[in-house]
């Protein structure tokens, strides 16, 4: 723990992320305004301090909705979606990677070629295709994101399995009668945990960006849901006369991405034995 706290990147990233997560989770207690219902008389009010009213610290958007409320409620959606996508991608990737590494042979070849095919598709195109078939919904969005992310885990875990399974202690465990499942659970998985953790936290940043990007393009969440990407998209048209509409969610996205990347890099440095002094 003390070693953890001596890593400035982990501390900074962690504090940033935790602050955003806590604020989003506490949205109903932090702001009273409704993030969805339009208030026609109050359109495009600037943030407080720039001539705006006290009731709307970050101003109001093109339908008179409180931007702080939309930001926090939007954070709930954006963060939950990104986290579910990472969890789904990591879960699927780890299982696939383990299977490919342990079974080997045809299954391995098949899975790895599948991964190659997957990597050849740009995520946005894949998203357009999937949305065209199943329509836009949070579940579809999480699936698209997870689909874009599983390869990373599968490859990492497979590589780890191939290395570890030939190590002497694994061989020893086998000779003592340990079955496949026990070898995986006790010897292999714990050894792959570190890289998965690192991957997961930097991928969280990618997922937040991707979710915003897809929603921005109209392929993700649909209005009037408050999602950061949607807020950005709606604010784009008002850049010249109400810049805060797009700027506020833009800053929020940058902060979360920065936090997750710092955390990921810090964890990598911490867990990589070669970087340890």
């Amino acid at each position, binding site marked *: 723990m003390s070693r953890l706290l001596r890593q400035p990147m982990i501390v900074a990233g962690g504090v940033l992320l935790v602050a955003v997560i806590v604020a989003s989770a506490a949205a109903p207690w932090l702001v009273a305004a409704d993030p*969805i219902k339009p208030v026609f008389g109050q359109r495009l009010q600037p943030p407080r301090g720039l001539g705006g009213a006290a009731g709307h610290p970050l101003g109001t958007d*093109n339908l008179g909705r409180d931007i702080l409320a939309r930001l926090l409620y939007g954070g709930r959606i954006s963060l939950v979606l990104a986290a579910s996508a990472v969890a789904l991608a990591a879960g699927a990737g780890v299982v696939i990677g383990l299977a490919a590494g342990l079974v080997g042979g045809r299954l391995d070849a098949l899975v790895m070629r599948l991964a190659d095919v997957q990597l050849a598709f740009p995520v946005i195109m894949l998203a357009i295709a999937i949305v*065209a078939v199943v329509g836009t919904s949070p579940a579809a969005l999480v699936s698209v994101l997870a689909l874009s992310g599983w390869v990373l885990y599968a490859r990492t875990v497979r590589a780890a399995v191939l290395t570890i399974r030939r190590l002497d202690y694994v061989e020893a465990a086998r000779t003592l009668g340990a079955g496949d499942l026990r070898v995986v659970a006790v010897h292999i998985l714990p050894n792959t945990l570190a890289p998965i953790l690192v991957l997961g936290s930097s991928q969280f940043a990618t997922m937040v960006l991707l979710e915003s990007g897809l929603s921005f393009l109209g392929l993700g969440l649909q209005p*009037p849901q408050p999602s950061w990407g949607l807020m950005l998209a*709606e604010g784009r048209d*008002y850049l*010249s*006369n109400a810049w805060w509409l797009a700027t506020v969610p833009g800053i929020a996205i940058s902060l979360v991405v920065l936090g997750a990347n710092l955390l990921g890099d810090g964890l990598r440095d911490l867990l990589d034995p070669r970087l340890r002094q």
Partner: protein
Amino acid sequence: MEKPRLSRRRFLLGSGAVLGVAAGPRAARAQARRGHIIAGLSERMLTLDPANHYSISSTSVLRHVYDPLLDVTNDDKFVPALAESWKPVNNTTWRFTLRKGVRFHDGTPFTADSVLFTLKRVRDNTKLIKSFVYQDLEDVRKDDDYTVTVTTKRPFGSLPAHLTMLGMLPPGAAGNEDAFFGKPVGTGPFRFVSWTHGDHVDLEANAKYWKPALPKVEKLTVRFIPELSTRAAALRAAEIHVIDRVWPDMVSTLRATPGIKVLDTPAVEAQRWHFQLAREAGKDPRIRKAVSLAIDRNTIIKELLLGYARPVVSPIPPGLIGHTNLGQKPYDPDKARAILKQAGYQTLTLDFVLMKDLYPKQLEIAQAVAAMLSEVGIKVSIRNLEIATAREQRTAGNYDLFFSGWAHMPHDPDWYFGQWFTRAGAEKLTRFSDPRVEQLIAEGRVPDPKVRQQKYEEIEKILWEEEPEIWPYYSVAIYAISDKLRNFEARRDYYVLLHEVGIA
């Protein structure tokens, strides 16, 4: 800096005028034509073929290169262009008398052969986008070099209106159209110079244009800048002189910029959100009625469009044949709730499909409508889809309400009625089908404007009662121009026409 330049220019102008009087009309005309106008349009041009698009921006560009037989003024009057006069001989025959002494840019004369070639080409080559309009042509006959008779399979009263949108081509284009449209010639006020796809078109003045003293500038460039903020920034930086499709929210910013003027005019466009009449919600007239009652159109016009729209009093906007005043649709959420309750609807969800980024502020308006409908207990799920995907969904019938507008580009509603309120036209759109309306549309195709007006009024009364569509507002077209432009007219049909515009 500014003052001496101005006075020198004024001095030169004065001496030019004196010289012009001395040297005759030719020198005066050369003197009058100067400058270079650059326009910024919202939509990219896709073709140089006047028969192969229904795009407003393509029309804006190509109308400078090709002339149609008739023109339509901003107050919806049909006036001579390449045809000096036209009249219906009977319900299925039109006769056109052509203008003499007009030449294409390559020097070939404009005659009846040009009209025959252009009309037969658009009818026979069904791959051309405008071809479907001209399928009703039976024959195009040349009576003499400057008289053409067109016979039609059924009455075609809107033919002159449609012809305002069809540029005349030289018969020499036949056989090698690809080469022709690489460097097209027309009879218009500007010659085609070059086209950089997706970016801009360069045109130069046609010194021998048949309208005297026009055009007023030497060069015309049309740039394609889809994003409004970029377009507006270019205008404010004085890189361009005119932009179209300005949003209401941008007006005050632009007005406050020195050297920029904002112009607006009631457009020939009605917004109309159509129901899918084969799905449960759209099928039930009570639901359509409740939706209509629950939408506060005046709030949308006043608060979201900042007054840049007008309340609808009939499906056809004012100025066009068939417009009539049936009174505004009321806003009455209590009545809407009562109707839904009586009809036994507890929970009702409407799929509201939008074509992404097509109409200004559509997402904002759709969200406002969703909030209004939720007040009466209707849940709206907005689906903002890529245009192609949205159209597929529409063809497949996967929507309850579809966000759309209709610009009556020929300044005539026949096309709108034929497309949306005949069985054949609406088959893949709304599934509208009503024998009474179908009959009236057919009867309203005759050339006699009095008959057309009467039939169209009857159609509109039926539609107003049945509400297969929600007509939320008539649009207003907003343009912003540099104050150096002279004589710019804000067109109701969204065209940016610069034939008669000069630049200081």
